[in-house]
C-alpha cells in the first residue's frame, strides 16, 4: 500500500505561498497513490523553472535537468530502461519556449511518458517576463508596452502533430487534475497535460478566480475524446469558457514497441556478450 506520506519530501518547499504549483503537487501525489506507484519506482525528470522544481518537493527518483531539455533527457532514460515510469514536470517557458523543438519531436516519437506543463503564462523563476503562452497585450516589466505575439497553444500543436493523449487541467481542481494525471500515466504512449496554473506573484490576469469562472469540466459534459476535429475546436476555446479534461485520446503503438531489440527486455538488463562482438570484429 502506498500512502500520501510516502511521498512527503524532507526537502523544504521553495514556492511562494498560494502558488498554483501546490495544487499540482498534491494532485500528483493523489494520482501516484491511487496508482500505487512506490516512490522508488517513479522517475521524475524536469527542466528549470518553478514548475521544474516540483520533484524536489516529492520523494522519488529525479533528474532536475537543464532549462528546456527535460523531454530529450527523459526520452534517453526511457530508451535505456523502458520499464521506467516517467513523469515530466515542465513550465510553459521550459516546454514551449526553450524546449519547443523537443516538445514537437517527443510527440512524433510517442515515447511512453506523461508530460505536465505547469502553464502559469509567465516566466516565474526569472521574475515575471512574458512566456510563450502569455496573453496578447499582457504588460510585464520586460514587456512594458505589452506582449505583441500570439499566445502559444500547446494543445493545438500537440493535436496537429498527432499526439495520442491531450488534456487540460486546472491546478485549482485537485481531484479533476489527479484524475487526468492518473489517466495520462495509464495511457500507453506520450501524454500531455497542460495545466492552468495561477502564479500569485507575477500573473495578475490569469488568477484562480479568473480560471474558476471559466473552466468547465469535459468529464461532466460526457464529452467523448475520440474526434480530432472536436478536440481541435476545444483546444482553441479560450475566453469565457475554457474546457478542462481529456480533449483527445487515441492509443497507437508507442516508440519502444517499434524497436525490436527491446523485445529482449530493457537495454540496461541485457548482457554484454564478448563473443558476439568478437564475431563482428573478426568479420
Amino acid at each position, binding site marked *: 500500500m502506498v500512502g500520501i506520506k510516502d511521498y512527503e519530501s524532507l526537502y523544504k518547499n521553495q514556492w511562494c505561498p498560494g502558488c498554483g504549483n501546490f495544487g499540482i503537487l498534491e494532485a500528483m501525489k493523489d494520482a501516484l497513490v491511487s496508482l500505487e506507484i512506490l516512490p522508488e519506482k517513479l522517475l521524475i525528470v524536469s527542466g528549470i523553472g518553478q514548475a521544474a522544481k516540483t520533484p524536489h518537493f516529492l520523494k522519488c527518483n529525479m533528474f532536475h535537468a537543464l532549462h528546456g531539455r527535460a523531454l530529450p*533527457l527523459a526520452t*534517453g532514460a526511457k530508451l*535505456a530502461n523502458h520499464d521506467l515510469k516517467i513523469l515530466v514536470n515542465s513550465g510553459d517557458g521550459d516546454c514551449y519556449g526553450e524546449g519547443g523543438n523537443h516538445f514537437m519531436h517527443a510527440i512524433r516519437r510517442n515515447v511512453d511518458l506523461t508530460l505536465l506543463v505547469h502553464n502559469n503564462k509567465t516566466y516565474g523563476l526569472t521574475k515575471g517576463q512574458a512566456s510563450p503562452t502569455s496573453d496578447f497585450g499582457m504588460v510585464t516589466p520586460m514587456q512594458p508596452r505589452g506582449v505583441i505575439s500570439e499566445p502559444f497553444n500547446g494543445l493545438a500543436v500537440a493535436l496537429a502533430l498527432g499526439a495520442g493523449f491531450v488534456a487540460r487541467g486546472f491546478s485549482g481542481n485537485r481531484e479533476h487534475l489527479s484524475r487526468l494525471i492518473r489517466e495520462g500515466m495509464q495511457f500507453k504512449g506520450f501524454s500531455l497535460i497542460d495545466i492552468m496554473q495561477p502564479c500569485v506573484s507575477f500573473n495578475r490576469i490569469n488568477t484562480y478566480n479568473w480560471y474558476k469562472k471559466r473552466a468547465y469540466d469535459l468529464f461532466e459534459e460526457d464529452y467523448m475524446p475520440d474526434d480530432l476535429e472536436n478536440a481541435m475546436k476545444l483546444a482553441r476555446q479560450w475566453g469565457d469558457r475554457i474546457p478542462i479534461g481529456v480533449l483527445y485520446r487515441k492509443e497507437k503503438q508507442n516508440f519502444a514497441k517499434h524497436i525490436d531489440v527491446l523485445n529482449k527486455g530493457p537495454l540496461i538488463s541485457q548482457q554484454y556478450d564478448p563473443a558476439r562482438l568478437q564475431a563482428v570484429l573478426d568479420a
Partner: protein
Amino acid sequence: MSIDITVKIGGEAGQGIQTMGHMLALVCREAGLYLMAINDFESRIRGGHSFFQIRICDKPVQAPHHKVHLLVALNRETYDLHKGQLASGGRVIMDEIDGSGEGDLIALPFSELAKKAGGMIFANTVAAGACLALLGTPFELFKKVLSKQFGKKGADVLEKNYYAAELGYQVVKEVAFKWSFEWRADKPKGALMDGSKAIALGALAGDCRLAAFYPMSPATGIMTHLSLLSDRFPLIVEQVEDEIAAVNAIIGASFAGTRAMTSTSGGGFCLMTEGLGLAGITETPIVIVNAQRPGPATGLPTRTAQGDLHFVIRASQDEFPRFVFAPGMPDEAYEITSRAFHLSEKYQVPAIILIDQYLADSMYIAQKPYVAPERIERFIAQDDDMENPQQYKRFAVTSTGVSPRALPCAGKALVVISSDEHREDGHISEAIPDRIAMVDKRNAKVPFMIKEMNPPKEYYGESGTLLVGWGSTEGAVKEAVDRLRDEGSDIGCLNFVDLWPFPADAAVDALKKTKQFLMVEQNSTAQLGQLLREQTGFVHSGAILKYDGRPFYPNEIVDGVKKYVR
C-alpha cells in the same frame, strides 16, 4: 620500400569514385599489401570534383603520398587538375571521349567497354580492371574480390562484373607501366578500417547502448556504422531532432544505466556545450565524439582540421573535469573509444574524443586484431552495496571525488540529481559549504584522472629537434621524421593522444630531452603549442601549420621543417 605506389581516382561526385576505390583497396588487402587511402570530396551530392587516393605499399603505411603514379581520370577536369602531381613516368588512364594524345595519357574506350559489359554502371569495374592490370595484379585476385562484393547480388550481376573486369584488363594488355610489380599471394595483414568504423566498433567494445545523434559531416559515418550493427547488439541508434536533444538523451540514458554516446562536428558540438556542463555538474558519464572540420560555423563541411582543441577542453561555463583524447589512427581510435567509455564511467565525467574528417574517412589496414574485452567493468552501486539504501546520497563526498553511483528505480536507494549546485543528497543547495564541497569534490578527481593519462608517444624522442603534434597527423609526422633522419637530421617526434586533463609532468619529461621543438598542427594558431606553454612553460620554436582543409602530406612537413632546421 620496394613497393610504394599511389593511385588516384578522380571525377565528379556520383561517378562511383569511392566504390571503385574501395574495390582497389580490397584487392590490395587480399594480396597482403598495406595501404592507406584518403577521400576528398565536396559538400554536394553530384558533380563538382572529388577523388580517392590510395597508396599501396609492402610495408605498413599511415599517410598519403603527394606524388601520383597512376591517375584514373573519370573526367577531363581530373586530368587537368592533377596531372601536375604525376611522378615522373606516371600515367593517366582516361576515357578516350574525354581526350587523348598527351604523352602520359592512356586513352581508353571505357564507356564503350562498359556498354559492352552491360551498361554504364560497369564503367567502374572496367576502369578498376585496367588499373589493376597496369599494376600487374593477377586477374584471379580481382575476381575473388568481385565475387565477395557482388556474390550476393546474383550470378548475372557477378558474371557481368567479371566480364567488365576482363575487358578492362585486356584493353591495357599492351601498355607498359613503370610500377607494375609482382603480386605475392600473401594473406591479409589486417582488416580494412576507417576511423569512423573503428570508433563504432570501439563504442561496442565500450558497451555503448544508446547512440543519439543529429547528422553532421564528418561525424555521421560513425553512426551509419553503428546503425547497421544495431540489430545484433543491445543497442539503439536514434537520430533526434537536434544536437541539444542528442546530448541530453545520452545523459538521460547514462543516468538510467546504459553507456551512451553521440557524435557531431563543430556547430553541433557548440549546441552540446550546455549539456556537457550538465554531465559535468551531475557527474554523469557520457562520450562525445567531435569530428573536426574547418570552421568557423559551417566552414568546409567535408574537409579536415584540428581547430577545436582549445574549445573542447574549455567548453561550457565554469569548471569541471573531463577527458579529452585524440587518437592518431583507427587502431588507436578503437582502443581510445572503448577506454573513453570505461574512464568516463569510472570517474563519472564526460569524455570527448577529438577526431577529424581525415581520420574519419581515411582507410587503413588495421595493424592488429581488435579484441573484444572479456567483460565490462561497471561502476554501479546496488542497494546491497549500501549500509542503508534509504540514506543513499548520490553526491557523497569521498576522498577521490567519486561517489557511489546508483541507478534510478533499481532498488530502494533514491537517486536525486539536480543541475543546480546541490547537497550530497542531490537536492539544490545555495549554502556556501555545499558549494565549496561540491567544487572541491569534482576537482578532487583531477589528480586521479591525470594518473590515467598516457604520456605523449615518443618516436626518436632523444633527438635534438622534435616535431610535436596530436591526433591524426601522427602518420604523416612520423613519415616526415623517417625521411629527415634518412637525410641525416637529428629529429624525432612526439604525438599527444591523451590531452586532458593535461599530462603536464609527462610532457615536461618528454620536452626537456630535446633542444627545440616545432609544432605540427592543422590549425592557424598552434593550439597545442599554446597549451604546452600554459601547462609546461616550454615554448615551441616554430610551427608547421596547415589549415586549408586538406590533410598533411609528409613532404609538406619535411619542407616545413627545413625552414627551421638546416
